[in-house]
């Protein structure tokens, strides 16, 4: 398929889009911000006969609070997330993660739905969505289902999303008053980089450094994002003093199974899982004490 011969369809409503997706005669792919799709096309990996351009679908670009949950439309860009006062107040870990995505231009164009759909093990917003207990709504022409984020991905670049489905909503649990979160990323440089390792940490705090429980999600250290359940189990056992933090962080390398690639070796990634957890917990405690 030559790029000059490709078609591009721009549906006006979600229903139109689902109708197009339900037809099987053409080979199609959805494009929103294009920050991944265009690159894949350039590399010759994604060459559909028809692009379905959903970037203009206003009905999928929203952030709202409904019955104690927050609903985020898949066409919300990273920049939208960064500027949302609701998310800043009640899901600031997602705001932090969105800030770390690529360059400003990519934050402007790239969407959260796209970040989920691309299913990169190094995706920056996904660990944050894990610790916010996100569920992803998938719609087809005649069906709608809600998939918990930890069951959405089947492997690197692979999800349970069917060809006739699209993401129509992302539902997260807002952070409560005593919940604090942090996103930590290690890349080959500070700006515009792909994660070597990243981690999202969310803690539920009592007084001082007593922790009631927490969630820890690592990126780039396994085929998909993973939760560090052993570390999580240790969080409420003792007040999170600097010594305890170091001890918990040391466990992290046992929970990850990274690979060596151009960015880093597996050994380094393992060590960095511990390092980022230690650094994140330490910084979180500083923040908590200043709160």
């Amino acid at each position: 398929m030559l790029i000059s011969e490709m078609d591009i369809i721009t549906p006006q409503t979600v229903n139109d889009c689902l109708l197009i997706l339900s037809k099987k005669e053409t080979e199609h792919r959805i494009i929103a911000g294009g920050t991944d799709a265009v690159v894949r096309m350039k590399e010759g990996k994604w060459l559909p006969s028809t692009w379905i351009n959903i970037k203009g679908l206003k009905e999928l670009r929203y952030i709202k609070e409904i019955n104690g949950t927050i609903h985020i439309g898949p066409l919300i860009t990273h920049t939208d997330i960064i500027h949302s006062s609701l998310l800043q107040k009640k899901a600031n870990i997602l705001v932090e993660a969105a800030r770390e995505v690529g360059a400003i231009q990519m934050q402007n164009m790239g969407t959260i739905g796209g970040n989920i759909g691309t299913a990169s093990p190094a995706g920056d917003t996904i660990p944050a969505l894990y610790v916010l207990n996100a569920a992803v709504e998938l719609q087809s022409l005649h069906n709608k289902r809600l998939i918990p984020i930890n069951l959405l991905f089947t492997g690197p670049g692979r999800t349970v999303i069917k060809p006739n489905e699209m993401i129509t909503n992302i539902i997260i649990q807002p952070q409560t008053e005593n919940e604090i979160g942090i996103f930590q990323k290690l890349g080959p440089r500070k700006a515009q980089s792909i994660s070597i390792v990243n981690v999202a940490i969310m803690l539920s705090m009592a007084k001082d450094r007593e922790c009631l429980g927490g969630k820890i999600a690592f990126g780039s250290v396994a085929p998909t994002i993973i939760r560090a359940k052993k570390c999580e189990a240790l969080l409420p056992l003792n007040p999170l003093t600097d010594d305890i933090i170091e001890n918990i962080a040391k466990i992290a390398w046992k929970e990850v199974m990274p690979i060596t690639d151009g960015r880093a070796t597996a050994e380094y990634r393992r060590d960095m899982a511990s390092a980022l957890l230690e650094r994140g917990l330490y910084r979180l405690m500083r923040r908590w004490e200043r709160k």
Partner: protein
Amino acid sequence: MKPSLNWVGKRVKRIDGPEKVTGELKYMTDYHFENMVWGKVLRAKYPYARIHSIQTEKARQLPGVICVLTHEDIPGFNGFGIVIPDQPVLASDIVRCTGDAVALVAAETQEIAEQALRLIEVDYELLEAITDAELAMSSSAPKLHPDGNIHSHVKIINGDTDAAFKEADIIIENTFYSPRQMHAFIETEGGWGVMDDEGLITIRCPGQYAYRDRMQIARALAYNPELIRVISSPIGGAFGGKDEITVQIYLALLAMYTNGRPVKIHLSREESVIAGIKRHPFKVQMRTAAKKDGTLLANEVRAVADTGAYASLGGAVIALAIEHSCGPYKIPNVNLEGFCVYTNNGISGAFRGFGVNQVCIGIETHLDMIAEQLELDPVEIRKKNVYHQGDISSMGHVVKTSVGTFKTLEIAENCDLWKNRSQFKKEVSEPWKKRGVALATSFHGIGMGIGLPDYGAASIELLPNGKFLVAVGCEEIGGGNGTTYAQIAAEILNCDISKIKVVQGDTSKTLDGGTVTASRSTYTGGRAVAAAAPKMIKLLTSAAAEILQVPLSDIIVQRDCLTAKEESLTYKAIYEYLYIHHKPAKVEGHFLLPKEKVEIKGSGGAPHHLYGYLTHVVMVEVDTLTGETDVLRVVSIPDAGKVINPQGLEGQAEGGAVMGIGYTLYEDVIIEEGFHKTKNFTDYIIPTIRETPVIETFPVEDAEQTGPFGAKGIGEVVMIPIIPAIMSAIYDATGARIYHLPATPERIFNALKDVKNKMPNIQGDKNDE
């Protein structure tokens, strides 16, 4: 020089600033023409293979394809290369790297051209790629070129190193590895070619020496160079990467087959990564001896440079590296040896610093190690060993020109960062972070060494509108040399700078004035302008005397006009007089660079007559949990001779510092088994503004008598000493030494682990290999 200067030494704004800042300026690869066609290059599929046949029939038959060219279509000599033309324009029987060009296509669209490339069938027989320079040097390795794999070998021996090592109190020995840095210019290689009805070929392609590009094109085309016009300026960045031929010959070849339609080639970043020239990766083994008081006694160096498949300027790079391998110090006994070696790893060539970067890390690290063991101050040990003007260098020659090293060291030790370093080091933001401060000094030859003719030329023409057109061959590479030329011209002509127009890099408009390389364009081009300007004054005053009918001695050159008694003449009035009387309105200035008379035996061109010097002080902060390193502050202390434009100097100093940070901490083009693992800027990491520290520039103006207004050159040394300075600062912060660049977080983290494991015996001279 006169104390009061109007333009020289002033913060004159870039004459090309507004159009660059607003984006109004079009670089040559920005242009599109209505009837244009696209050219594409078929690159080799394998790093080392024999070609049995090339079938182009299917490609030719594709609708929209205008021509498909192979080595059989080259009218002249199938080769190019600045020093020796060992690189085929289009491969015929063998490919030696994946950057090798095998065929060219011109087509109506880029897409059709790409399709056509896929339809060209090349029958390859795979050969085992040689990807390690040391292995390539062994006698058992297959020969990549008829004369073997050692392209060049330089050896300098001075004094008696054996005896010196015996009497030494301290000996330090290490091996250093440096990366394959990419120029990463924003404008990838590309340009335009067109041939008109009269057979005149015009090539618009950013390059660093239009006249030499023209000769290389003419040789491949077997075509009269007078019928080839090369426009090579402005350049969207080059840093040495456009010194060699990039796509000029492809453009000219295709232009011969496109029926007068302009043909454009513009490499994608991915193709630029594979085919473009890179900095030579080096392995440098160094052994240095000193006395108890810190006096350097001897230095032994063995450097091996991987030049990849073709020489380009590799021979000159290794020669310059060896010439600079002992730093700006007087070491009485040296034994220095360098090899430039062919492999199947892409192609290496010219890059800002030109081999000095790779060796500077050795000598500067050794000075710090010696100082530490002898409990000497890093500034003191350097001050003790630097040569001064008139001293004998480590190469054994008397340095006759200006030497500012000592002064740069004095400024370094008195700058805020160095003086208050113990305070700054305490101000870490988080408990696991550690700060270090270090300094290093280096130097860099200006102009070509012995054996290469080096000259400058410029012309100045009075234009009908009363302005002056200053024409210099040296291209606008991004550094602002055009503004420098305008300042020098305005200064001597005594006019406002707005009266000066500058044209650069166009064989139809500028004289051959040599390359824009070797930190030479301010010095050489400036001197040529300074040679032409008095002739223009003479032309103006003679004309004025004739117009006013007064003796020549009555004419006074005033600001923006010429006067005699009460009468005043504008430049425009003078032009009109010259025009009516059919008198020339253009003058030329020529300048031959001073050279050393005696070449150091075996050195391949050393010594240089002139050197620029620089000291860097840096502060880093290392995150010991992850190995991430931030350069927080940089002080750059260049000895550039007289500074023509402080703003321009700061631009060079800041850009150079950031490029040095990139080299030290982030950048490397990874090639495995001859194939590039690094594809584009996704995995080639260059510093962004978030990695850019506070950079202060404090120039030492040690005037060079032969330079224009006392100027020297600074374009390269600005990125050099910062490299070992960062390495030493990391050590100062953490106790971990890095011998293998780039010092990525992972390498630093592993070095930190080693330090922890080796405790308490930190003092090892062993390498991390």
